[in-house]
């Protein structure tokens, strides 16, 4: 147990710089108010009250089945794709309630991009994968598309690896490259927020490191919410962390504080590996 606690200790150097940039008083980008969600009869989210600050990395941790994925999928209303889902409460995104009927899910998802657990590139060329979003939103000029594709791939740290083979099928890339391509595809719609659901859980350690570095570099421009079951990862990269348990938020605060001196005993048990 002692060894494990050590592992989750927060690396000093990285934390210092993010501390300067990110006090919790950043403008909030999302604010949920008594958010409840049911899959049919079973309630998966209970009274979630969270304020997510912009231009920083917010980690969601918790044992499997506690509602992490469900929660971040409410932030871009992807949960609606499941017919049995019922949502109650408010989610304010930059001041407007995205759960109200007149807020279009398509518009929301153009602002709030998402990266999934398993890399899911389209069975198309690398170029067409990145150009997909811009094309959906009506950009047709090849020159502009070229620029977007290059910039997105550069920002996703994968340009040098793929610039010679943009016309090749994305399925030829390794898992880690595919995931960075998916991040590039997400950047191409120029979102404000990027949601990530365990983006490295299907990757090997080296690819994981690359993706983590990439996520760090993205927070200057984007607000990032990342679900992870890997507590070291949350400790390494996030500025604030929310601990979910059974569909409830047990604790939410600065990552450093949550991992070193949690207020709730259940958080303590969880980060010390006593359950989950």
């Amino acid at each position, binding site marked *: 147990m002692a060894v494990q606690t050590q592992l989750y200790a927060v690396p000093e150097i990285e934390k210092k710089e993010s501390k300067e940039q990110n006090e919790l008083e950043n403008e909030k980008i999302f604010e949920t108010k008594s958010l409840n969600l049911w899959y049919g009869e079973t309630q998966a989210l209970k009274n979630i009250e969270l304020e997510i600050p912009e231009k920083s990395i917010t980690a969601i941790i918790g044992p499997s089945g506690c509602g992490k994925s469900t929660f971040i999928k409410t932030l871009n209303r992807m949960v609606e794709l499941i017919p049995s889902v019922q949502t109650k409460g408010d989610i304010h995104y930059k001041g407007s309630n995205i759960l109200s009927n007149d807020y279009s899910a398509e518009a929301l998802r153009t602002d709030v991009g998402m990266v999934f657990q398993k890399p899911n590139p*389209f069975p198309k060329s690398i170029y067409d994968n990145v150009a997909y*979003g811009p094309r959906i939103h009506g950009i047709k000029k090849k020159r502009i598309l070229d620029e977007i594709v290059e910039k997105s791939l550069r920002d996703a740290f994968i340009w040098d690896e793929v610039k010679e083979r943009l016309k090749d099928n994305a399925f030829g890339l390794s898992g880690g490259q595919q995931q960075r391509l998916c991040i590039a595809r*997400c950047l191409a719609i120029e979102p404000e927020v990027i949601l990530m659901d365990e983006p490295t859980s299907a990757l090997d350690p080296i690819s994981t490191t690359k993706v983590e570095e990439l996520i760090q570099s993205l927070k200057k421009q984007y607000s990032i919410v990342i679900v992870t079951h890997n507590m070291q990862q949350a400790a390494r990269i996030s500025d604030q962390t929310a601990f979910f348990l059974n569909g409830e938020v047990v604790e939410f605060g600065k990552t450093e504080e949550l991992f070193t001196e949690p207020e709730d005993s259940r958080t303590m048990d969880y980060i010390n590996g006593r359950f989950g």
Partner: protein
Amino acid sequence: MQYIDRLQVRKRINFRLRLNSILKYVFLGATLSGLVVLAILLIRTVSQGFAWIDWNFITGHLSMDPEKAGIMGAILGTFWLMLVVIFFTLILGMGAAIYLELYAKKGRVHSLIQTNIANLAGVPSIVYGILGLTVFVRLMDFGSTVLAGGLTLSLLILPIVIVSSQEALRAVPQTLGEASYGLGASKWQTIRNIDLPTALPSILTGSILALSRAIGETAPLVVLGIPALLIPFPGGFMDRFTALPMQIYYWTLDAALVEEYANLAAASIIILLLMLFILNSIAIYIRNKFQHRF
């Protein structure tokens, strides 16, 4: 206490192994008996009909004289039928499959429709013939034309095309759709750019196989009153026509009068088999060439 008695196990092992090898031969026998019957049929047909296939037989007009008779009219008729069937089944079949699989709410009504479509696939083809006769030949007054025949055969295979297209759409990984919605795409944009292109090879494969069933059908055409007469080659959808299965049917019937007609029927079967073979090869080619692996 031990539940597994080693000695007993060892005694029974021999029996189990022998049973296994006996069953292997039983299954082999089942496979072979099918193959043997098929081989006999093929050999008989080819040996009877092959000598009768020559340039005149393929390109010539129909004739009472077995030496002069040709089946170009029937080949063209079958060809025109295929065009009509492809057109209507692809549009209606894909449309219905997209609606049922991707748009419709999955509830009681949906499963009722679904069950009915599956049942329609099992309705005997002659019933479709009667339907076609009533609706297309008489009510809509198309007469015994390519269009009437093609529409009837389209109805016949539509259930199969719908169900196989639905399966193709269902096989598109959900994660791809999610990725597309996640980028702000609408439902139709996602269907148009992701679901359809990914499913298209399977949809085409299924449709071509269904099509090859349609062009081999005889019963509905008999009911529609499709003749095998000395009529001009069909040149369009509103022309009267005959088709290969009809030709085979009438020649076989009339073999009682003119013995050589049986050989002509066998020769026509070879031509029809050849066309089916080409269609199935196209289906296999599409499947192998465009198959996605996820």
